[in-house]
Structure formats: structure tokens, C-alpha cells
């Protein structure tokens, strides 16, 4: 089996938001919608305070609560663990957005562009009218993954088969791969580090790992 997951090394992330920009650029998401965003968090008590940057988005849970509540069947989970949305089925009820403990889903009722009513040249290419009025979220750049696999490439290893946020990360904080493959990049990384997953008490089994420390 294959189970694609994302690993964010919080020791490396510098909060530059390049992943966010790359995602927005590729997917043409409207203002305020960040499928991949970086939370800028403050930890500790003054004067012993640290800034921590946490890349986040859809956690592609093994037990996604968004899937169970979806009345239309628009939200589905693929065999490789990627949770995706069929825009043609979604009715935009937002039940999924309310069920997601990670706040990873968005719903925009009107066409919105970065600068006024008209799309920019980039947005003319990337904007998807079908995404208006329905739930949207990170899909691990499933189009890139599928095309890469079709061309014999390995997601997480070959950039042409890897999510754009990972390719764009300037500090190498983001890693993508198949956790069911014992030899994969993500397994090697996770086996040699201390890591955690967000809100595991929700029993969602998220597919997004965060590295805090070495062995």
C-alpha cells in the first residue's frame, strides 16, 4: 500500500511563507485562502520567548472527520491516503469545514481576485471557477503526483511528482513521501527524529508530521 504524508521539520522552518506563495500561485486560490499556510507562534513567557513557525493545512487524516459529515460524497479519500474534494458534487454546506479540527478548509461564495474584480494574468491561468461556492483545501498537489507517477517518477523524490510547497521550501523543511515504504525519505527522517502530529487527541490519525528534535 501507499500512504503519502508530509513532514515539516520545525527546526528548519524560518517562516518565509514561500510554500504559501507557491501554493497560491499554483492553485490560484483567492485572497484569504491559504491551503498551505505557516502559523507564526510565540512560545514561552517574556523574556524567555521563542518564535515557532508551523506549516499547516489539510492533514490528510486516515480517519478524516470531514469525510463522514459530507452529505454529498464530494469529499473522498484515495487509496494513497490523499483526501480530496469533487467540486462537481460539493453543495457548499460547509459541514466539512466545521468538522475539521485543523481549520484547513475554505469556502468562498464569490469570485475574488488579488487586485479587484479582474483576474491577474496568473489568475487567468490558475483560477478555477468550479472552486467558487464549494469547499476547497490542500490536495497535496494531486495533479502533479498523478502525472509524475504516470511518467514513472517517485513523489517526494522527483520534483516533477512532488507537491509545490515542498519543491519551493528554501530551507528544506518540507518533505513528502510514502510512509508505508520502509525505505522512503519520510520514514528515514521520522525514524531519526523526535516528532509529533497535531491534535492526535481527535483520533484523526493525521498524515502530517512535525519534527521537533533529533534522536
Amino acid at each position, binding site marked *: 500500500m501507499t500512504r503519502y504524508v508530509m513532514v515539516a521539520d520545525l*527546526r528548519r522552518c524560518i517562516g518565509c511563507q514561500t510554500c504559501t506563495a507557491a501554493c497560491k500561485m499554483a492553485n490560484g486560490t483567492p485572497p484569504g485562502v491559504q491551503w498551505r499556510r505557516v502559523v507564526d507562534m510565540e512560545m514561552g513567557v517574556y523574556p524567555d520567548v521563542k518564535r*515557532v513557525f508551523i506549516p499547516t493545512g489539510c492533514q490528510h487524516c486516515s480517519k478524516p472527520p470531514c469525510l463522514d459529515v459530507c452529505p454529498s460524497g464530494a469529499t473522498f479519500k484515495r487509496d494513497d491516503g490523499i483526501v480530496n474534494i469533487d467540486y462537481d458534487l460539493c453543495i457548499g454546506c460547509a459541514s466539512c469545514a466545521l468538522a475539521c479540527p485543523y481549520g484547513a478548509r475554505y469556502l468562498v461564495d464569490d469570485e475574488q481576485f488579488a487586485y479587484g474584480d479582474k483576474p491577474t494574468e496568473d489568475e487567468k491561468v490558475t483560477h478555477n471557477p468550479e472552486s467558487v461556492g464549494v469547499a476547497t483545501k490542500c490536495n497535496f498537489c494531486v495533479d502533479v503526483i498523478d502525472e509524475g507517477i504516470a511518467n514513472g517518477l517517485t513523489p517526494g523524490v522527483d520534483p516533477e511528482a512532488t507537491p509545490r510547497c515542498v519543491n519551493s521550501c528554501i530551507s528544506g523543511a518540507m518533505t513528502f513521501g510514502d510512509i508505508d515504504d520502509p525505505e522512503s525519505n519520510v520514514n528515514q527522517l521520522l525514524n531519526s527524529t523526535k516528532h509529533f502530529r497535531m491534535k492526535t487527541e481527535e483520533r484523526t490519525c493525521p498524515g502530517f508530521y512535525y519534527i521537533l528534535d533529533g534522536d
Partner: protein
Amino acid sequence: MQWGASSRLQSFWDARAACNFIGGGTGCGLLLWAAIGLNTSLPYFPAALIGLLFVAAGLFMVWLEIGKPWRAFNLFFRPQTSWMTREGMVALPLFAAGTIAVLFDADVQLGLELPSPFIPAMITALLGLTFLYCQVQIMHSARGLPAWRASWVMPLLGLSGLTEGLGVYLLVMAFLGTVPTYVQMAAIALVIARAVAWYAYLSALARSGAPESTTAALSRASAGFLTIGHALPLLFLALGFIAPGMALPLAAMAGIAATLGGWFLKINLVTKAAYIPKFTIPAAPVRGQTG
């Protein structure tokens, strides 16, 4: 502060969604009490008709809320797990049985001779309870929101629906000129039960580590909810027992207050208390060891 580092109020569902819970709860509660009243020879169809209209209005409001209203039929596609699908599937027979029951009870006024409304009225009441249960589960299954996923939200909303329905029933019966003692006693019992459920809900929410903004919003709403939805109805009903000559208008006022209290609760629960918790991490990352 940036979302994620702090909790965030959900903005997906607004007052229109709250109206669905209001219409569903009040309407289904009313259908139940109308059916119970039918067993004691009270008029059925005025209250039942209003109950069906409440449910229909609630569904219409949620239809206005969704992003793709002309695809609304798609909501029937996942009965295996979705309480919203189940709610929709129950709504269809609910309206069918309710319409039949209303027609059967209104046959004299319509100049017809139709069978007794007893069986369709009971079926309607049961379907109404099922519909209400689906609505409660819809809210409970919103796992991203501690204010909604709390286990006590189910008895609280269930009891509130029954109380709101009984509140409107008191109003309708007072208008028709008869409010039996058992209906008033039921109202007292339900109002007290809802207050108990409210305190249990608040207590469970505080123990669960809900966002401070959630508990603060509910604390702000608590005084209004308890005063409008509980203290006033109990006062009016008690005065009605003391002054039987004023019992009907006092019962009507008690009903209005009990109903408005429930609506106030739902508006607050949906639009003011539903915060998505912030992210937390177990420790700060140790920089400089990335290998």
C-alpha cells in the same frame, strides 16, 4: 493575532444556519406536543401546521446558506455517515405524514369526512423526534468546534427543541382558549431540565479545555438565556396557578419566553461561541540540529 496561534470564530455558518436549528427544534417539538394533545382531545391541526411550517422555514434558511443551492439534491448521497443526509431523508416522510395528519384532523373544516388523524399524527411526532435527533447530531459531529462537539450539546439541544415546541404550543393553545394543567406542568419540567442541561454543558465544556473565547461567549449569553428562557417562563406559569383568571395570557407569555430563550441559545451557539481552537505543540523545536 494570527489564526492558528489563537482560536478563531467559525464564519461558515451564520444566522441562517442557526435558523435551521431553531425551525427544526421548535417545529419538531411542536409536532410532538400537538400529537400528545391529540390524545387528550385538544385541537391538533393548528399546532401541527405551524410545526411543519417551522421545519420548512428552517430548511429553507439552510438552503439559502449553502454555496450551491441548485445542487441541494446531492445532500442525499451519503446516508452511511452523514447526519445531514439523514436529516434530509427524514424530512421527506415527515412532511408527507404531517400533511396527511393535518388534513385528517382538519376534515370537518374542509367539509370532508376523513379517517382519524391519530396514526399519522403519531408517525409525524416520531419522525419529528428523529429529525430533531439528526439536527442534534449534525451539531455534535462538528469536531472542529468544542462548543458543538461537547457531549452535553445533544441533551441540551434536544431538550431545548422540545421546550421551544412546547412554548409555541402553549401560545397556540392559549389562543384557542384552553391550556390543560398537564401541559403547564410539562413546561415547568422541561424548562428546569433545560437549565440543568445548560449547567452540565457549561461544566463539561470547561473541563474539556475549550477555547477561552468559547467559554467567555457562553458566559456572556448565560444570563440572558437563563432569564428569558427559564426564570420568566417559571414566573409566568407560577403566577398562572396563583391567578387562574389570568392563566391563559400568562401561559402564552411563558410559552413565548421559553421559546425565545431557546432561540437565543442557538443564535449564540452558532454565531458567537463556535471557535476553532488554536494549535499547540508539545515543545519548542531545537534549532541547529538538522543534520
